């Protein structure tokens, strides 16, 4: 179909396509300006980061800032912890949320809507009030300063369930009917029909879970005391001292820290989101 259009309006569409690229590149560049500023700050000496008028390049280019930032604190340990937490949480969220979402989307059971409302309701209470009761629970369980304290409390929020439920609801019922007629169990329907069809949604959930944990600051602040259990956001906040912030080093650390998140994003987008259109599995 697309070929037919191109055949008919080849030249015209080539022109518009180039125009479109130019516009896209321009928009992206404008959008990236703050990021450029981040890199520029990371290479400045500290007393020039807040100077007015702001200059793109400082009086000297301090490449050594990156090493300084990395050695400021045990960032290697922080990265390891963040990784363990983010990956485990993502796996837990994807599995448990999709299972629960299937129940909410496809099974008629008593109290379903009320229960779903309760799920949704918990999203409306800010973390700042729930973290105290949650910390008390952690203390009673003896989980302060442990991986389980970083992983378990955040793996069962309603956010993933809500997201997957919405996506599941867009899948036509006929497919499951077909499966049911063939004698498929509900779990079979879930595993063999619904889940494969939901790769874009699952990858979206995975991306958000991973990145959410990678950036999560408040809960690790509260529940972790020992330096060797800390996560990256806590490390980054350390650049903010009582009497001033090392903005240049903070930007260096930021630049380093975002790399895994971007990689995960690209990988999941490429193989799970784009993968659909290449293999044609999305068609119904």
């Amino acid at each position, binding site marked *: 179909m697309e070929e037919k259009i191109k055949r008919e309006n080849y030249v015209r569409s080539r022109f518009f396509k180039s125009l479109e690229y130019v516009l896209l590149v321009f928009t992206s560049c404008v959008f990236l300006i703050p990021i450029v500023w981040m890199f520029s700050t990371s290479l400045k000496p500290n007393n020039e980061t*807040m100077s007015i008028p702001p200059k793109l390049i400082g009086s000297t280019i301090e490449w050594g800032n990156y090493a300084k930032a990395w050695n400021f604190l045990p960032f290697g340990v922080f990265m390891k912890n963040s990784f363990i937490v983010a990956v485990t949480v993502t796996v837990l969220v994807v599995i448990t949320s999709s299972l629960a979402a299937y129940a909410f989307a496809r099974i008629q059971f008593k109290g379903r809507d009320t229960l779903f409302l309760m799920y949704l309701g918990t999203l409306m209470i800010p973390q700042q009030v729930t973290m*105290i009761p949650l910390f008390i629970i952690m*203390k009673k369980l003896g989980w302060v300063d442990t991986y389980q304290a970083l992983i378990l409390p955040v793996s069962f929020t309603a956010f993933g369930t809500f997201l997957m439920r919405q996506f599941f609801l867009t899948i036509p019922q006929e497919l499951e009917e077909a499966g049911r007629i063939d004698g498929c169990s509900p779990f079979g329907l879930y595993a063999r029909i619904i889940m494969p069809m939901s790769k874009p949604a699952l990858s979206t959930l995975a991306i958000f879970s991973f990145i959410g944990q990678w950036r999560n600051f408040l809960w690790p602040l509260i529940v972790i005391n020992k330096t060797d259990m800390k996560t990256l956001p806590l490390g980054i906040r*350390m650049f903010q001292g*009582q009497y001033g912030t090392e903005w240049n080093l903070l930007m260096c650390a930021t630049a380093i820290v975002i790399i895994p998140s971007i990689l995960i994003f690209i990988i999941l987008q490429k193989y799970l989101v784009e993968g659909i259109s290449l293999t044609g599995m999305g068609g119904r």
Partner: protein
Amino acid sequence: MKRNGLLKKLMALVLSAAMVILAGCSSKPQEAAKPANSAAPKAAEAAQPQNVKLRWSMWIGSSAELEQWKELAADATKKYPNISIDIETTDFIGYWPKLETQFAAKNTADIVAMQGIRAQSYLNKGGLMTLTKFINDDKNVNISDCNQMMIKAFSYNNEVYAFPYDSGPYVTFYNIDLFDKYKVPYPDDNMSWDSYLDRMQKLTKDGNYGVATNTTIDHVIPYIWSAGGDYYDAKTNKYTIYSPENVKGLQFLGDLYTKYKVAKPITDPGNNNTHREQFYSGTVGMILDGPWFLTNAKNNCKFKYGIAPIPKGPAGRVVQVAGSGFGVGASTKFPKESYQIVSSITGTEALTKIAKWGRGYPARNSAVPGFTETWKTIPGIDSVQQTANKDGKPFIGPQTYQQVTEIFRANIEPVYLGSETADAALKKIQTLVDAIK
């Protein structure tokens, strides 16, 4: 009439769990604390010191700082080999919500870092353990050597709850290079508000400014105190925000922004370090700050700088002495050992080290020589000691002080913007403060 079996069971489970948690958080502090407070024979205790592991929580801003505290901890454990210490660190901003959450769960560290200005809010609620009994039993501790204003900040109902490690007065830091450039006489001991203003006006050109401040009450206090006013009356336990002297002080500060335009316009109101950041950039002539700023100034100021006392207001020169210290968390299982560590890390040797590391002006007179020695190359460094001894006034935050400072900040910002006079602003603040329940 819908019977939701699943739902009902879930709700029952949830509510009972909620009750358990709330019951937990109102349990009494650890029983173990009580025996230690009772009069146990000292000889028996000395004969069998138990091996204990203590938690020490502190804010830090770098690995270098952590190493410093570790050194003090090592010195302390050398003295008391039965004690080992785990240092728990946080960034300064995150330290306070974390500390409060720990209090809520009765999970505070044994040794707790505390700021003088915040101390009263914790002391009047039983957050720290009283040290009086340990002090009385301890022949080696010398309380009179400590800065008495800081001891006052850490006292409640005549009991001492923490030992200070630093106690700095606010002084003027000035950019020598900028003063030289415009041939302005350096700030000196006799600088009045008029000559202060005069200097600032001479410095405000080519994008440079005479002074920079932030929007906190801390920067207003030197002016209202030096005008003869105060925000609080300890005798009546009332906030005395609206008074002619306070108005005079605040209006002078506001005029620096709106009338004379010698104060660098504030562009970052939420940042309490903004005046320091502007000072680093070399475009500001003077800022008010304390000796805690010395290390950062050394690391970030690529120009010569000096120190002078703050200007003399209509009622003379009165300025805050602020600092931090360490106390013992009320839920500790080892009060005696915790006290021993606190006493050690705020002792003369420790504070001399702290002074040498440039953390601030030490809170013990015996450690001051270390400070003077380290910073003797800074012009005017003796202004610090001089102000601390002569013109300092304790910086105490009474009950509800945190809330008052937020009200203050929100309502003096219009004064810096020029949309409200100091008189109207302080009147408004007084009404709001009086209404705090």
